[in-house]
């Protein structure tokens, strides 16, 4: 029979999803309350009901090709209303984690990022790398005089490292996203609008999606997400601001020849933007962390992946701001040490982006574009 699908459950996949925080997935008995209460779920084949049974049955293939898992913004209404105590919100989060780990390249990195025991190794790598480069170039000392970080870690050391890391991240993400897109095209929701020109595709699917993301409108659709909306918005825009700052400085140094432009004066608009970004980031992270600590476990439970990501972001922001403060109060040893820590954390954040929860930024965007492209959006 042609229309009959052979079902082969993958028991390991079930165990993995459970391990990533989906421990309640087996409780589902398919009443569909979750799909009914969800504000984001499409009318046709709504999530998260079908994802729940696919996950119960270990139907990895279906789930990896499913854009719907990324349509969820985890307001957890489903988990609150579930009569069986299953938490579809957490289960979808776990599947998302599994998904980007699965598509990421190289795949062993995913494993390193997902287990706490590898954290020292992951942090140790940039420490050793930086110390080695500083040692080799004779910079393993505290510079004299006014605190200028370039004296401690010259651009020719730090920038190549981050440029290489960025290229690695870009390649890794490109491979992951390509696999992901291909998977979705072969999945349950094939594209309805094939043969679109690139221009039209960008115009009718990419740009509206990006506008949605910039406006955070999906977040607003979930009634329960108001607080998370604010926090996520702060973090999102602070990252944007800090990216602009980084871009301007990079442009200044390498294109305008302002090799010694740093540190910028406090009144400099770029500096102001940087400070604003840092404060917004700290505020956003504080809200997120306090929400998570207050969170009722019956509704949702944060996993290792959730915690390690938000804490790294938080520490990046704090260490960045501290670096500036200590520089201004002029305590060289402390300033240079904190700057070193800041660099290590930034390395963690950027280099491991495709394998950490940070990857959601890319995968969700791609999934939302696909959803729009395949007519999957509500």
């Amino acid at each position: 029979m042609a229309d009959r699908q052979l079902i082969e459950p993958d028991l390991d996949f079930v165990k993995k999803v459970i391990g990533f925080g989906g421990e309640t997935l087996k409780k589902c008995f398919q009443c569909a309350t979750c799909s009914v209460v969800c504000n984001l779920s499409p009318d046709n084949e709504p999530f998260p009901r079908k994802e729940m049974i696919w996950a119960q049955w270990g139907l990895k293939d279906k789930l990896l090709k499913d854009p719907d898992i990324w349509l969820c913004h985890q307001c957890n209404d489903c988990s609150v209303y579930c009569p069986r105590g299953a938490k579809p919100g957490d289960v979808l989060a776990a599947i998302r984690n599994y998904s980007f780990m699965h598509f990421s390249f190289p795949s062993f990195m995913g494993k390193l990022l997902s287990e706490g025991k590898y954290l020292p190794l992951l942090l140790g790598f940039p420490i050793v790398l930086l110390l080695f480069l500083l040692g080799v170039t004779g910079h393993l000392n505290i510079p004299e005089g006014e605190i200028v970080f370039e004296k401690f870690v010259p651009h020719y050391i730090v920038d190549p490292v981050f440029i290489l890391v960025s290229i690695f991240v870009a390649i890794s993400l490109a491979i992951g996203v390509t696999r992901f897109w291909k998977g979705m095209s072969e999945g349950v929701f094939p594209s309805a609008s094939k043969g679109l020109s690139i221009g039209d595709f960008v115009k009718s699917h990419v740009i509206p999606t990006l506008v949605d993301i910039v406006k955070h409108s999906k977040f607003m659709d979930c009634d329960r997400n108001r607080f998370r909306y604010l926090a996520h918005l702060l973090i999102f825009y602070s990252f944007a601001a800090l990216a602009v700052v980084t871009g301007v400085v990079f442009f200044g140094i390498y294109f305008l020849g302002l090799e010694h432009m740093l540190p910028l004066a406090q009144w400099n608009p770029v500096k102001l933007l940087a400070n604003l970004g840092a404060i917004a980031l700290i505020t956003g992270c504080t809200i997120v962390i306090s929400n998570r600590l207050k969170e009722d476990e019956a509704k949702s439970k944060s996993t290792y992946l959730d915690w390690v990501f938000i804490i790294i972001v938080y520490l990046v922001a704090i260490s960045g701001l501290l670096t500036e403060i200590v520089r201004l109060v002029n305590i060289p040893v402390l300033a240079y040490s904190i700057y070193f820590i800041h660099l290590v954390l930034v390395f963690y954040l950027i280099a491991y982006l495709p394998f950490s929860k940070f990857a959601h930024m890319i995968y969700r965007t791609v999934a939302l574009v696909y959803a729009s492209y395949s007519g999957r959006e509500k």
Partner: protein
Amino acid sequence: MDKKIGVYICSGCDIGDSLDMDALANVATSEYKVPICKNHPMLCGKEGSSIINNDIQKEGVNTVVIAACSPREKMEIFSYDPTVISMERVNLREHVVWCHPPNDEDTQMLAEDYMRMGLVKAQKMEPLEPFSEEINKTILVVGGGITGMTSALEAAKAGSDVILVEKEPELGGWMAKLWKQFPKDPPYLDLQETGIDSKIIEVKSNTKINVYTGAKIEKTEGAPGMFDITISQNGNSEKVKAGAIVEATGWQPYDASKLDHLGFGKYPNVVTNITVEEMASKGKFTKPSDGKEAKSIAFIQCAGSRDSEHLPYCSSYCCLTSLKQAKYIREQNGDAKVYILYKDIRTLAQNEIFYKKIQEDEGIFLTKGDVVGVTEDSEKNMVIDVDNTLLGENIQIKAEMVVLATGMVPAAGIEMKEVAPVETEAPPDEKKEEETPADIIIPSDILNLDYRQGPELPSLMYGFPDSHYICFPYESRRTGIYVAGCGRQPMDSSACTDDAAGAALKAIQCIELTSQGKALHPRAGDMSYPDLYMSRCTQCKRCTEECPFGVYNEDEKGNPLPNPTRCRRCGICMGSCPERIISFKDYSVDIIGSMVKAVEVPDEDEEKPRVIAFLCENDAYPSLDIVGRKRLSYNPYIRVIPLRCLGNVNLVWIADALSKGIDGIILIGCKYGDDYQCHYIKGSELANYRLEKIKETLDRLVLESERVRVLELSIDEYDKLPGIFDDFLETIEEVGPNPYKDF
């Protein structure tokens, strides 16, 4: 003994304010020449009731007529020894003053008619003489499974001697074949031992229980309190006596070989849940085809159950059993995959907790769906096609072994398919006249009753013995024989133990009441029983055929041989007898006929029609009491006569009423059919069939057949009664007055 009637009229509860009490008393004293007629404002009080007791003791009153509230009220106050005192209650409160306008001519006429009817009945009632015979108090339990053993132990603990007969060489039944059972105690999470071994020891060591294993019942003769049972064991026959019987013969799995679309019998790796229990006790779940461990196993639920082609009902244990067996398999092998394909998961009561627990096992995959077929692929894997699954599509599953969760067939119903409904042996010329659906009695070789109507308990549906399920579980249609456990309806072992205790108590109750000459429910405590005036019997066999309880055996000539202890005192035989030779001392064709004749019929020009309403005392009569309590009003031309059962209606009453000028007769009984509510199973149904016949007679008499109406009513429909009466009176008005009025 001479009758001395005392009439006591209560004027409380609005009666005195609504009626002319003197005129009412006059009916008794003048019309019926009653020597004592007293009036009291509160007859149910201490003073009131002592008036009656005084008259009984000092004045020699032996027949008491209480004209007050419904006979269903104050029963403990107006209670006299029926072997000495006859009592009749006239319902002035619920049926007269509470539902008709006070001090109205019609209301007064109604009350006076009821007084006349009560007096006539009182005149004809005789004190009761309870049936007495030597009673054996032993309880026979048939079946040595969990239900039978529990029943035996419960009866023994209550002090009864018990005989336990089991056909297998060992006690234990199905429970002894289970490896473990699903949880029975809080927190309902873990599998439990069956505990059957200790129960077997308990039964064997109980000195009050006499166990026969490897034995069967060859014959059951007699009646409650005096059963003579022939037990055969090892080729020997032994006669024992018993007072009551508990039939706990349990179930057999549905024959899976009838399920060829599921591959049973065709592929060796399709097995039943019974086989899985055997595998579990051996500790290995191996494929029958090659003896290797099955790493993926699919359970097909409702295999043949809830299927009109096979077992139309749910057996209620299969879902839990499969969940349990899935657990067996997963405990044994953490990599095994278990599929459960169900129509609906039905885990009753606390068992839902166990379902939730099993559901959480990551290796157990559940989905609803319709299994359309099972086949085998080239690698000897079983391939199961399932439609409409929760996965959102039609799917195919491969498993190394398939388990069919088959349902329960009652032991009493195993042979059902092979047996056509038994035709009643009415002579050919009488056929079609009075024919109710024949009882289904399946010769299942369990009790081998020496009853005229058949060797086993009549079954209702699907081969389960007919019991009065609504009100009285365990009761069967053979008095003194109680059905418990899976033989009664599919259930799990804890429900079986509850059932067992209930049936044991019923058996004890039966023996105790029988030894006092009293009826069992629904007329519990009634000491009357049918008396046959045999010299006028024509051997028509209607009584022996129609008795729902098989009271009558027959001799070779066709004479009825009553067994009074089998009798429920419903009086259906009284209604069936064309010669009217079956009577009770306090209830007979003559008594009711006289009550009909006692109604005063006004002349035609008075335009006051009269309708007799025969109401079943179980539902219709109490419904009319509710109408009174709710102060709903209805037509005052209705004259109500309560009957033990609508099946009592003897056609002569209809003839009497019409010839006296009564304009219409309405008969209201309980619902009948598959979900019958008749307390005597088929009384109202019989009445309906019999009345079909009277309509032809009416037509012959040039009387309109609309004058007789038969209706069904359940007690919660009391509010329909006023409308029913109004509607009937309207019809009567259309038809016009009874032309026999002036004769």
